[in-house]
């Protein structure tokens, strides 16, 4: 794809002495939500962390827009407009919700109407604005992590399993939210929750054992039980 | 950066090396009087024996449980001073050693229980500080009660005649001490083996402890205190328990020290320098690996006694070069020790034994 905002080209990543990624090649088109699926330990998180420069690729190239970010320092990558919501949410427990957000906001100043949108989306954030973040519930932490990613306009947001531990109600709300966010940015989403993924994803890539085993449009995958069973061995009936 | 080491993979080689080295050291110590008959070597060997026990007992705390204590030499000192004071007041005799020693150990135990219950709840660094405080209070006491302790200058005393060079164990034809390979079978020899065997016994005991279920529990507590509690281990009790065990063993080592040296003073037992030595030894050797204690002690002690001679040579060799001889000046040997130490902590956080055995790697 020519309009790719992010391109991974045959990326290999090791962690300690473990070889985790063996040749991930992936194009993320500009705009919309794009999903990375795969079983536990497949290498989804590692992929995101490698893009973000938190693990170093041993081999291969990562290109964001026209910048080669393979060897770039994490902060510089972030400054290019890439936001990251890690698996463990990476919130600062010692800081209040507000301080957490402030750090994510450019120059520490909030864009009011974005803030209002976040409050509408996650009322808990407003409610616990001055609460120390370690005191938030699992889900509230998750919300904070996402809020932090969208408090500024980003070009690309990497999100690792955002629905983990969220109540269905929130998940539903989030689907709408992501749709809205996707208007202005590109989202690369790692998911286990296929229904969530399906509801949002335009394209999908399935990763297994550190390799991409399937790439295509979400519609195609959603439509094709066989594919699903092959790559995701989905057992649960959709509802 | 995660210091992961795959226990399942690299097994024998490194381990074998370590065990080999330790075994060799053990044998050398066992036959020290015959292998290195010169006097200084004797002193060195004895010091190594005692310190192996002391350092290993400290490893129980810092390596296996992640407790950082600066009061370890305090317990060491209690054992030594107990023995010394008894020998001084009651005169030379095994009864004095027995009584004084056991009083010292008792004191150590009581103190350990108090400190443990009082402060093992608080955060690690605070505990380190409290032990530091306790230790320095003890040092002040030692210097204040100079009529008992000899104050700063410490005290000398005589030990049972059985241990004195004059005492012949086995007489030869003309009534002098029988010699084997030129080594006289006299009290001195007896004293050395008293020290050696006691140390050996204590060390083996500790090996057993760390291999026991308790050992694993301690590591678990080190890793994740809250979860250990959640699966049913009373963290505080375990912490206190191991703290006491370590304290008692340290005190016992103190007794050996006092008997061997025939002198006890702050500088050989209580002082912070010794605490530092112990720390260096356990780290260089490798925390959380009993073997490390042995290796660390041997290296450090040899350095303390012989490194200088080496540098002497180096200095004179490089005498005509610019600044090198200055740095190789034997009096600056501590500088090098420090640098080596830093590099070790830097590149082999698991210490020598730890790295070789792919174990420990304490974080």
């Amino acid at each position, binding site marked *: 794809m020519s309009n790719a905002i992010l391109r991974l080209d045959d990326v290999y990543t090791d962690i300690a002495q*473990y070889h985790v990624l063996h040749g991930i090649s992936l194009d993320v088109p500009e705009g919309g939500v794009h999903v990375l699926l795969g*079983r*536990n*330990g*497949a290498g989804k*998180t590692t992929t995101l962390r490698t893009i973000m420069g938190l693990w170093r690729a041993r081999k291969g190239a990562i290109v964001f827009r026209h910048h080669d970010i393979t060897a770039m320092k994490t902060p510089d990558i972030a400054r290019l407009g890439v936001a990251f919501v890690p*698996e*463990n949410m990476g919130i600062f427990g010692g800081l209040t919700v507000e301080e957490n957000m402030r750090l994510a906001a450019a120059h520490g100043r909030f864009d009011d109407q974005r803030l209002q949108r976040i409050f*509408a989306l*996650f*009322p*808990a954030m407003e409610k616990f604005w001055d609460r120390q973040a370690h*005191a938030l*519930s*699992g*889900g*509230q932490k*998750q*919300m904070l992590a996402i809020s932090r990613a969208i408090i500024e306009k980003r070009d690309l947001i990497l999100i690792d*399993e955002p629905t*983990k*531990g*969220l*109540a*269905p109600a*929130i998940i*539903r*709300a989030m689907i709408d939210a992501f749709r809205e966010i996707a208007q202005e940015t590109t989202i690369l989403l790692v998911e*286990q929750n296929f229904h969530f993924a399906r509801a949002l994803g335009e394209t999908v890539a399935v990763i297994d054992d550190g390799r991409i085993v399937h790439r295509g449009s979400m519609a195609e995958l959603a439509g094709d039980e066989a594919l699903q069973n092959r790559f*995701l061995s*989905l*057992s649960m*009936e959709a509802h | 950066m*995660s210091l*992961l080491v*795959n226990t399942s993979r690299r097994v024998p080689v490194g381990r074998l090396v370590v065990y080999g080295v330790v075994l060799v050291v053990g044998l050398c110590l066992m036959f020290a009087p015959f292998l290195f008959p010169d006097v200084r070597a004797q002193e060195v060997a004895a010091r190594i024996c005692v310190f192996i026990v002391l350092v290993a007992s400290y490893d129980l705390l810092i390596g296996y449980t992640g407790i950082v204590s600066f009061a370890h030499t305090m317990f060491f000192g209690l054992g030594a001073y107990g023995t010394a004071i008894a020998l001084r007041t009651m005169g030379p005799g095994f009864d004095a050693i027995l009584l004084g020693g056991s009083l010292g150990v008792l004191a150590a135990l009581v103190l350990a229980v108090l400190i443990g219950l009082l402060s093992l709840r608080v955060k690690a660094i605070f505990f380190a500080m409290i032990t530091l405080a306790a230790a320095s209070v003890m040092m002040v006491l030692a210097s204040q009660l100079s009529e008992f302790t000899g104050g700063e200058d410490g005290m000398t005393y005589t030990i049972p005649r059985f241990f004195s060079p004059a005492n012949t164990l086995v007489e030869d034809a003309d009534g002098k001490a029988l010699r084997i390979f030129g080594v006289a079978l006299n009290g001195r020899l007896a004293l050395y083996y008293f020290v050696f065997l006691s140390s050996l016994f204590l060390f083996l005991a500790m090996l*057993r*402890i760390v*291999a*026991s*279920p*308790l050992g*694993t*529990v301690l*590591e*678990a507590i080190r*890793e*994740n205190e*809250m*979860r*250990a*509690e*959640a*699966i*049913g281990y*009373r*963290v505080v009790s375990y912490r206190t*328990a191991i703290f006491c065990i370590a304290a008692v063993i340290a005190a016992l080592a103190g007794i050996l020290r006092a008997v061997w040296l025939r002198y006890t003073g702050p500088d050989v037992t209580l002082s912070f320098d010794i605490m530092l030595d112990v720390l260096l030894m356990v780290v260089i050797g490798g925390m959380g690996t009993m073997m490390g204690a042995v290796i660390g002690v041997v290296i450090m002690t040899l350095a303390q006694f012989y490194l200088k001679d080496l540098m002497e040579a180096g200095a004179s060799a490089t005498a005509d070069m610019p600044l090198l001889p200055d740095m190789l000046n034997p009096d600056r040997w501590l500088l090098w020790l420090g640098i080596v130490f830093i590099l070790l902590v830097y590149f082999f956080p698991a210490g020598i034994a730890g790295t070789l055995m792919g174990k420990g*790697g304490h*974080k």
Partner: protein
Amino acid sequence: MTPSLRTENLTIRFGGHAAVNDVSCAFRPGELTVIVGPNGAGKTTWFNLVSGQLKPTEGRIFKGENDITGLSPSARAKAGIGRAFQLTNLFPKLSVLENVRLVVQARAGQGPRIFTRASSMTDIRDKAYGFVEATRLASVAHLPAAALPHGDQRKLEVALLAAMEPDIFMFDEPTAGMSVDEAPAILELIAEIKKDTSKTVLLVEHKMDVVRALADRIVVLHNGELVADGRPGEVMALPIVREIYLGVGAEEVA
């Protein structure tokens, strides 16, 4: 029959905010209760109170006849209250097997043994291995827990709980972040436990299908208060539940 676990007006406040507010309910053996509620409802906090990580501001907790409100977490664990954590919480540098072995050993009260070699206690080891297999971790049994991917860590979390063999099992979102083909293994395990009628199982879960598949009874928490309690069908039908949980009008959530 007497309830195996009972909380009386259980309340905890953090500052002004009551995370759990006057919750009284009882649980019987052989029953699997799913505790649901929006994020921040107080589920995890309630767990923490029962398993002893937190001390209640008011109220008491009974295991069977005896009041355990004052007991330490370890004491409660010994008393047969077992709990798995929402955010994974393991012994990172110990191997998977060692992790489990520790639990079995605690069960067997072998912790304080000083002079026997742990490795020689094969019975404990074998038993531990059993649990490792049951949770499909055998292949990684010798890896340090830290090296496992998130999903496997969740499984280990469950394995630890199972190994505690408590009378009362408390799972906090056991399948969160577990891929759809992994989850069933855990659910089967829970189903197994449920078969044993002497056990009481409490389960915090958001995934509807899981709830449906397992629940004998559903308790709904909201803003720290118990708002509904009953058979799945009935509870799910309650308007309040539909509103706060299934998210008709998601704005008010949390």
